[in-house]
């Protein structure tokens, strides 16, 4: 599903080049759950952003579901994301002026799906918020907002879900629920899931772990659930 070859990211910081991600190779097979762990500033979120095409790498090549995304322009990347990738952020990033159900509808409307409203309601039920659809994000708790964000990520049935510290902004009980939800979704739909996390319990349930420190992989582990190639 995901193939990275020599992918690095260098930015200018105070006029000086700063490499936040050193050249990295990575393969994530279809259906795997990969946890990316490491301390703050280790390049985890940068890596996830590159995989989602939200940012472009300084070197290397990224292939998602057989598409080399490094050669795609902004718009083609956006289309690919709409079709293949669901993204869950630490800070939810729901559109504040849209209600919960409208937020879930957005990716489907962008893709031009006619059943957006009905499907959004089904997704709302799936994440257990069937009666909160007409609330605005500001009227929802953090855990509820994140559930809406997950429902939104599932809207177009993407084969790949990327989650950037999805429990990082939640208390442990809410975090647990979100994690359960993500894992359940992954199992029921057979999607590939990449989770950036600090949380050891998240890492524990993943098929594979990638540990980053200062922008370099320090360990790649495969657990009993699956395998890293």
């Amino acid at each position, binding site marked *: 599903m995901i193939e990275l070859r020599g992918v690095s990211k260098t930015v200018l910081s105070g006029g000086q080049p700063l490499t936040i991600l050193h050249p990295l190779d990575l393969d994530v097979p279809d259906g795997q759950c990969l946890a990316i762990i490491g301390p703050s500033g280790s390049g985890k*979120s940068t890596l996830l*952003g590159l995989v*989602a095409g*939200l*940012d*472009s790498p300084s070197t290397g090549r990224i292939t998602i579901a057989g598409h080399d995304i490094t050669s795609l322009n*902004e*718009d083609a990347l*956006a*289309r*690919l*994301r*709409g*079709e293949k990738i669901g*993204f869950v*952020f630490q*800070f939810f*990033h*729901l*559109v*504040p*002026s*849209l209600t919960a159900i*409208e937020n879930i509808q*957005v*990716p489907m*409307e*962008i*893709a*031009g799906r006619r059943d957006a409203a009905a499907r959004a309601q089904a997704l709302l039920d799936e994440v257990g918020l069937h009666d909160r659809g007409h609330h605005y994000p*500001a009227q929802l708790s953090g855990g509820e907002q994140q559930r809406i964000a997950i429902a*939104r990520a599932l809207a*177009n049935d993407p084969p790949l879900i990327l989650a950037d510290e999805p429990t990082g*902004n939640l208390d442990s009980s809410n975090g647990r629920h979100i994690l359960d939800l993500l894992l359940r979704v992954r199992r029921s739909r057979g999607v590939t899931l990449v989770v950036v996390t600090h949380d050891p319990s998240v890492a524990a349930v993943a098929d594979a772990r990638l540990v980053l420190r200062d922008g370099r992989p320090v360990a790649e582990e495969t657990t009993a659930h699956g395998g890293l190639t």
Partner: protein
Amino acid sequence: MKLADGVRYEHALLRGFGILVRPELLAQLGVAVGDGLTIGSQRFTIRGVIDSEPGRRLGAFSIGPRVFVDLADLQKTGLMSFGSRAMTQMLVRVPEPQLDALVAGLRKDFANAFARVRSYKATEDDIGEDFARAEDYLSLVGLVIVILGGIGVSSVTRVFVQQKMKSIAVLKCVGARSMQLLSVYVAQVAMLGLAGSLLGVGLAALAMRAIPSLLSGTTPGVDITYALTLPAVAQGLGIGLLVSLLFSLVPLLEVRHVKPSLLLRDEVRPHRTDVTQVLVTLFVVAGLVALTVWQAGSWRVGLIVAAGFAGTAVVLHVAGSLLIRAIAPLARSKSFALRHAVLQLSRPGSQMRIVLLAVGLGSFFIIGVRSLQHNLVAEFQVNVTPESPDMFLLDVQSDQVGAVRSVLARYQPSGSAPARLLPVLRARVVGVEGRELRLEDYEDVRGRGSLAREYTITYRQTLEPNERIVAGALWDATPSAAGEVSVEQSISERFRIGLGDTIRFDVFGRIVSAKVTSIRYVEWSDSRAGGFMFVFRPGLLEKAPHGFIGFLRGPDEAAARARMQADLVGVAPNVSVIDGREILSAIQSVVDNVTLAVTVVGTLVLFSGLLILVGAVAMTKFRRVYEGAIFKTLGATRQLIAAVLLLEYGLLGVLAGGIGAGGAMALTWGISRYALDMPFHPLVGLSAAGVAVTTVLVAAIGVISSWEVLQHKPLATLRAE
């Protein structure tokens, strides 16, 4: 009084039958300074040429060139004998504070006499009235610009505080108190306001320098010095500073609500009534009202204008909310761009409402000012068609008609209508026997005010092109000695003189009775063929001693016009020839200058409106950048985001323009009708253009200022949030 060739005016010049003359007289009669001139039966010597006279209006003209003689010598000309028609003017210098009271008192004392009292501030004549209108208009517009600028300041301050949120939180983390931060930002605003006002004063100084060269030669006989006065500079700086502070205070109060915890997590501030904010808002409102009162120079006008502004804002806001509600169903559209554009506008608490109000107010004032300007300029407009008469003859005697006609025929340009000579008589109303009005004698008539004035009357068989009958019927072509008169509509309405009533006139001492057989509407703005309050049926007045006035199209060539005038003097020396072209060009130059001033002011309003627009659009920028990033993450292409932005701002523009144009129409109507006292012309084209321009500008500025939404990679934006 200024004399030509640097000669100083002194009364001695007039002693011993000296006269001072206008330069036109020298040209007309072919004489020079030092030559003799006989006036009446007295021989005078030309001692000087008048360059300019104090108190003469811009564009003023008189019948024939003016000549100054000693008042004592006037008696010796023999012109001032029994039966002469003369007018005496007394010029009095009065201490300024007593002026208005004196004018009012004299007017009351002479209410029933034929004396007119006017001060230099008089607005009785049309041009004076036009200037007074222009002045009212300019001070109104000045206020509008100040308020528009204030709205811009307010929006920009809002954005400024939003941008500074993180810095404020950091400063609070390290111990800064709200009041300290507030004073820092207030001081910043004050400095910016002062700097902006200084820039304004600098621009004004440059403009003042440019004005004389732009207007040189357009104000003959009037010396105007253009200079920045110290009070004006102080006032400009004061207003600039005051407006910046007043309008930025409320948005700056937001500083107090920034919590250091913002650095740790996003928190939505619970909506609570903020007593301080309410108090400060009240203080700001009071300050603005005081400013308006100061600028208007009167409590009454100031309060009315301030209430007008507030009312306008409320009305525009309500109109905006209604319009937004009206377009809300469009959110069900299948088009993503249209649906989300409408959702953005119609959401409760949307910042777009404030933008709508600000831009709506801006377009309201701009369209309002422009349509007022059109109405004002239209009032000034002098329509000259190639066929319309441009020369006028006064005082042609009955026995001179033939000779005058033959001279005129020789000079008549081919294709133009022959000269028309209209009989004119002077008459007073000395009695009315009507159903509603009964006036026994002249004393009764005098009790009716202006009905007692002397009227110029005529007789003819037909209507002029600028007349139509509104009641009764005009007589047929046959003359009748029975006495019939057609009365102008406003006279008939004001004095309730109706069909069938009989009016008695005193025509040169003879009493003539005439029955009202028709009421006429006269289009006075097109009265160059003569406008008469009373027109008689031919057959009654022909025998009375009377003269004629002539309307004709003169030759185009200046030399031919001069030859024709000379020939006319040859056959009828008493006839005065008025060259309409000179009058028209004098009026035209005044009109041009007023139009220039109005246009300059209108352009200034337009610029301040643009500033509001930029400030208002900037207010929504953070939200747009953020949402753009989210939409991109969810698969939206730049094209799609651009389409949402274009539709969102386009819709906003249409709504704001529509509100503005509607309000402007109402404003222009109200001001034309009640404040400036002139007819209202609805300017549909201008309003439509206003809506279109607002839409295009708002859409363009919205999309251009959102360019980085389209260009930026989404990750950086989302991480910064």
